[in-house]
């Protein structure tokens, strides 16, 4: 098993607030790794550091053995490391199919390809993926008119359209209708198995993450509190305390 993402003692402060302190993590290729922790424990901050949203104070971040901590967001995305946002982001003024079409990866295409006419094959792939997440019926609706949960699904489909090597999802089930959560877990697993995408998932919902991840990291106060298999985490006293203490 090769390590795809290696975060090595990364620290990040905002003014005086320490959001991440000497955080180290590894994500192996082809796995699903979970990241949990109480609100404000620095999970989103870590994601932002990885995908290039802000500079880190210390440490190193390697993706496919390549140092990425100095790179910009689009560069990192073109390496095949994508993220979705906690506050869902889609292109509100375009319809779902258009959202999908423009999400196709630019890392293999030449720049001039942008000026070619749309191919039927691209549309078909877009529609298949929309079908996959259950948005086929809504494909001609403006993305901005979708509900929050539907936008989350669309954002997930857009990420799949990009064919990333690794996908980092920030709370994918937050705001989604509880009856649809099981379906979403199923789709995440299928994305991992069928498309071979490595997943790194922030999740607040313990039941979901236990179901989904093969390995889990727990952050508290910006530091790694525990790591291990789902069962180990479930029974870890420090994790239980952190969660109880936070509420």
């Amino acid at each position, binding site marked *: 098993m090769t390590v795809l993402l290696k975060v090595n003692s990364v620290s990040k402060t905002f003014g005086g607030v320490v959001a991440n302190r000497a955080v180290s993590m590894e994500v192996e290729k082809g796995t699903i790794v979970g990241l949990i922790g109480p609100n404000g424990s620095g999970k989103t901050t870590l994601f932002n550091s990885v995908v*290039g*949203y*802000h*500079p880190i104070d210390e440490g190193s971040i390697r993706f496919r053995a390549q140092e990425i901590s100095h790179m*910009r*967001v689009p560069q990192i995305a073109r390496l095949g490391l994508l993220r979705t946002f906690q506050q869902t982001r889609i292109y509100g003024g375009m319809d779902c199919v258009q959202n999908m079409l423009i999400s196709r990866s630019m890392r293999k295409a030449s720049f001039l390809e942008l000026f070619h006419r749309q191919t039927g094959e691209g549309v078909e792939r877009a529609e298949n993926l929309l079908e996959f997440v259950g948005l086929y019926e809504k494909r001609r609706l403006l993305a901005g008119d979708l509900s929050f949960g539907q936008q989350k699904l669309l954002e997930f489909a857009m990420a799949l359209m990009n064919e990333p090597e690794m996908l980092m999802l920030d709370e994918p089930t937050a705001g989604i209708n509880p009856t649809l959560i099981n379906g979403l877990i199923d789709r995440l697993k299928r994305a991992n198995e069928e498309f071979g995408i490595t997943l790194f998932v922030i999740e607040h919902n313990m039941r979901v993450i236990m179901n989904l991840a093969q390995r889990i990291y727990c952050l508290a106060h910006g530091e790694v509190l525990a790591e291990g298999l789902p069962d180990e985490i479930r029974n870890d006293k420090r994790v239980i305390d952190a969660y109880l203490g936070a509420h």
Partner: protein
Amino acid sequence: MPWAPDLYLLVSTPGLTLDLIINGILIGAIFALVAYGMALVWGVMNIINVTQGEYVMLGGFVAVGMWHAGMHPLLAVPVAAVLLYALGLLLYHVVIFRIVDRDLFTSLLATFGLSIILQQLMNIYFGGDTRTADAELGRLVFSVDGYRISVSNIKILAFFLVLILGGCLYVFLKRSRLGQAIRATAQNPRAARVLGIDTNKVYAATFALNASIAGAAGALVAMAYTIHPYFGLPYTVRSFMIVIVAGLGNIGGVLAAGLGLGAAENMAGFLLGVEFQIAFVFGLLVLVLLLRAWWLGRKRQYLK
């Protein structure tokens, strides 16, 4: 290089350099005050107010008008403040309240439209000539290193009046009830509304207060310098630049940036020729924005 001999003159004559810097700093304080007002409206209402320079121009014409009517132009400072306050309220209730929560480009374009209207009306009414109002306060003359420096007293008076005005505004925002309401609204309008603050009134007051301050500054500009109907936009741009450099809500930074800009502009006017002074202002704007964006880009950020 046409400016090389000038540069030599500048380096070899410290008195001349000092003269340029003193004059630059004196007008720089006015830039800073106008910028402070812009930062206030920007911070509280999230509007970049392009009419900023027109308020200065209008305040200036109040002074010119009163001087022509035989009154001492210094009286125009409070009169301009009151008149511009009224104009600010009027503009707010006719136009601005409709665009407070729209995107920044809308407010940019709308206030741009307002500024065209104001400058055009003044042009129709007063004509396009360069005007001044003479306060007849004499000059201060001294010499440095054999170089005779002469500064008109009104410039010095204007400098101190501007500092006092800015200080009053600062204290007002910190201490008064309205000031506190303004700051609360700036931080979180929704929370302010919950606390029973009428944000609409706060916005109106903020917008008018800014107009009033800039108008008072304009009256001083008309006495210490010159005005004409179309000189508003450079003032707006200077304010914008100062706010970009200093950041919102940093009064020390605003003052420092204002004084620095005044001195730099005066130097550039001397070196490049006065005909390029406006080009310098706008060129500097572009440069400041690009440098700031580049600086943030190094930190994986951008101006927003």
